[in-house]
């Protein structure tokens, strides 16, 4: 039998979205094939990794995840600068954990000031991630949008329940919106339509399908992302042709499997390496499903994933 390399017929393309501004702005998206199927079509922009920074000192983190940031975890500006300088971060994601109404419940003004300081201290794109509490995120992210106008932030999660107010602020002060939906392709499409109707231009929109790590339902995110890409690339579903952002680090490091010590369970091996691998392998899985931006934490996990991206795209 004669052999011919089978190829997928694509008729769509992911939109190219520019994040941040200036020399360090990055462009994501633009792919017209399934992830890394470079024998079929192209991926003009490589997936990017944003490094996690928290706006308050983390509690109950695995030791392995804290160690690389020793001395800076109580100062988000220093933390972000360390990520840039020591770990070569291309982007920062500032997690506004302190604003959680079930936690520290810090006010919008104070939180926005911290965001502003971080934004002014770095030149890479800055993602700002709220707590997924609609009322609080509306308050906080609107204030952030205003205080940091002209900084071209990437703001999320923007959900159906708070998309109008946060979306309007993003349009007004020119920030990118992360449209966030709970692991459902139809809801994702619907929110993109709603944001479009509101007036959010396509070039200011990325999607968060809600991801989870290995052992905690990664297969749901994996399949929803694959379906999104299938619809976007082979079924001309324009409302799904947006880059995908995966907030994966916190989903992996919060699990007990990253915290069990080797002495507690010798079969689980070295705790630090296990945590790094759970993060890197979860990220790898998300990349294969269509992730364009991965929010990651441990420098060694990031290094592993960067190497994989480089090798998967090496000519």
């Amino acid at each position, binding site marked *: *039998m004669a*052999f*011919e*390399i*089978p190829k*997928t017929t694509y008729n769509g393309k992911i939109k190219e979205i520019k994040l941040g501004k200036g020399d360090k702005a990055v462009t994501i998206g633009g792919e017209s094939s399934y992830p*890394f*199927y*470079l*024998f079929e079509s192209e991926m003009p922009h490589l997936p990017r990794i944003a490094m996690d920074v928290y706006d308050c000192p983390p509690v*109950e983190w695995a030791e392995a995840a804290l160690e690389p940031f020793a001395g800076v975890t109580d100062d988000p500006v220093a933390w972000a600068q360390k990520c840039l300088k020591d770990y070569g971060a291309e982007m920062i994601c500032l997690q506004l954990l302190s604003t959680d109404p*079930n*936690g520290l419940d810090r006010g919008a003004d104070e939180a926005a000031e911290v965001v502003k300081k971080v934004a002014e201290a770095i030149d890479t794109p800055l993602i700002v991630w709220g707590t997924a509490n609609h009322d609080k995120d509306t308050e906080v992210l609107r204030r952030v949008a205003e205080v940091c106008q002209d900084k071209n932030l990437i703001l999320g999660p923007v959900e159906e329940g708070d998309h109008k107010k946060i979306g309007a602020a993003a349009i007004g002060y020119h920030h990118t919106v992360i449209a966030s939906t709970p692991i459902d392709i139809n809801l994702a499409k619907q929110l993109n339509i709603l944001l479009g109707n509101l007036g959010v231009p396509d070039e200011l929109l990325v999607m968060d399908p809600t991801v989870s790590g*290995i*052992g*905690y*339902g*990664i*297969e*749901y995110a*994996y*399949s929803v992302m*694959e*379906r999104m890409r*299938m619809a976007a690339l082979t079924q001309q579903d324009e409302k799904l042709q947006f880059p995908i952002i995966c907030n994966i680090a916190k989903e992996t490091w*919060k*699990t*007990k*499997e990253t915290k069990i010590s*080797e002495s507690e369970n*010798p*079969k*689980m*091996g*070295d*705790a630090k*390496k*296990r945590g*790094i*691998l*759970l993060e*890197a*392998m979860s990220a*790898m*899985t998300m990349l*294969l*499903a269509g992730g364009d931006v991965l929010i990651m934490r441990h420098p*060694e996990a990031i290094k*592993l*994933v960067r*190497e*994989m991206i480089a*090798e*998967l*795209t*090496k000519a």
Partner: protein
Amino acid sequence: MPLTGIEIFKLLPKTNCGECGVPTCLAFAMNLASGKAELSACPYVTEEAKANLEEASAPPILPVTIGVGPEAPKVGGETVMFRHEKRFENPPALAILISDTMAEAEVKARLDKCLQLQYERVGLTLKPDLVALKADSGDTHKFETLVNQAKVSGCRLILMSENPDILAAGLKAGADQKPLLYAATEGNLDRVAGLARENSCPVAVKASGPEGLAQLTEKLTAAGIRNIVLDSGARTVRQALEDQVIIRSAALNKKFRPLGFPTITFPAEMTDDPMKEAVIASMFIAKYAGIIVLSDFRGESLFPLLVESMNIFTDPQRPLSTTEGIYEINNPSENSPVLITSNFSLTYFIISGEIENSKIPSWLLVKDTEGLSVLTSWAAGKFSADIIAPFVKKCGVMDKVKHQKLVIPGYLAAESGGLEEELPGWEILVGPREGAHIPAYLKTWQP
């Protein structure tokens, strides 16, 4: 073109004997048509019908069993490119490399790892399946000794050498284990094919790229060999992924029989860094490997790989569930809180993880909700007061605690009144809606 179920049915005995495992010949025919059954399951099919059906009814990617006995892993048998289209069937078998140049103690340690590194999760045992015995010494006697040692351990085997004499020596010791012979190549095809046929062993073919593989497998199938595993030879990440996709796609989308077999991949030969090797292996789990050969098994990488594999190979239509019962978290006492949730495994993992994180000793009751989440099972009428109350009474938690307080999920708030009626004397507390808020909630809990 593959035959339809009805076309296949016409060629079957139509006795409805049931010996194939399904009650009627028609049902069996339908399973054959969709690739869910194999013709060999029917003991009464005529030779003539067999010849007609064999070609048409074979699944597009043949399932191949490595080794003997109930534990022998089956790989291949896949029917879709994307798991949401139906499901992925057989998780990749993970193999540990053992060389015949390794010291005996090292060999033993590696065999032990293959047997001992097992993990319990949602009532399933996750474990690696294979040892890949590699003839590096070039000495037939050494290889035979190694195969003997491995065979005694009870692990299922891959015999690795391109030298037919060495493979033959290995088979002398281990033919009864039906090991996978790795590998037939252009240079040794006839002799390795002969060994595979004489010993009825599965055989891996190695060539450069899918096209070269197809040429070799056509020769093997012409010689009557069907239990074939493919190695496209790629040892760079990009080429290896590409080959995996092309092989799967050719078999499924083009019905290209010469590539309709499971694959074997070698992260062990793609990097010297064990961490990177693990990440490469994680790629092969999602993208189409049948067998993944690792340089070593280490708990910190083996455990995540096995869990990832379980996740990706979960049937999207049938969520995993956890056994109903009382789960003790952080050594609870008679004054510890009692919480109840559904038995959707993801719900269980998240809730039990959050309770563990809280460090508050607690009793977690897991009710069988047929694997549905809290909200879904409640909406389906499977998690209401009249179902929860008898379970709470029967499960035995009442003998374990002195207080009479039950924390229910926030989404079941509407059931609290009904529960207070059904469980007289009990105070029903409405807990948080989200697992993430459980630690804060438990910290305020008082008996």
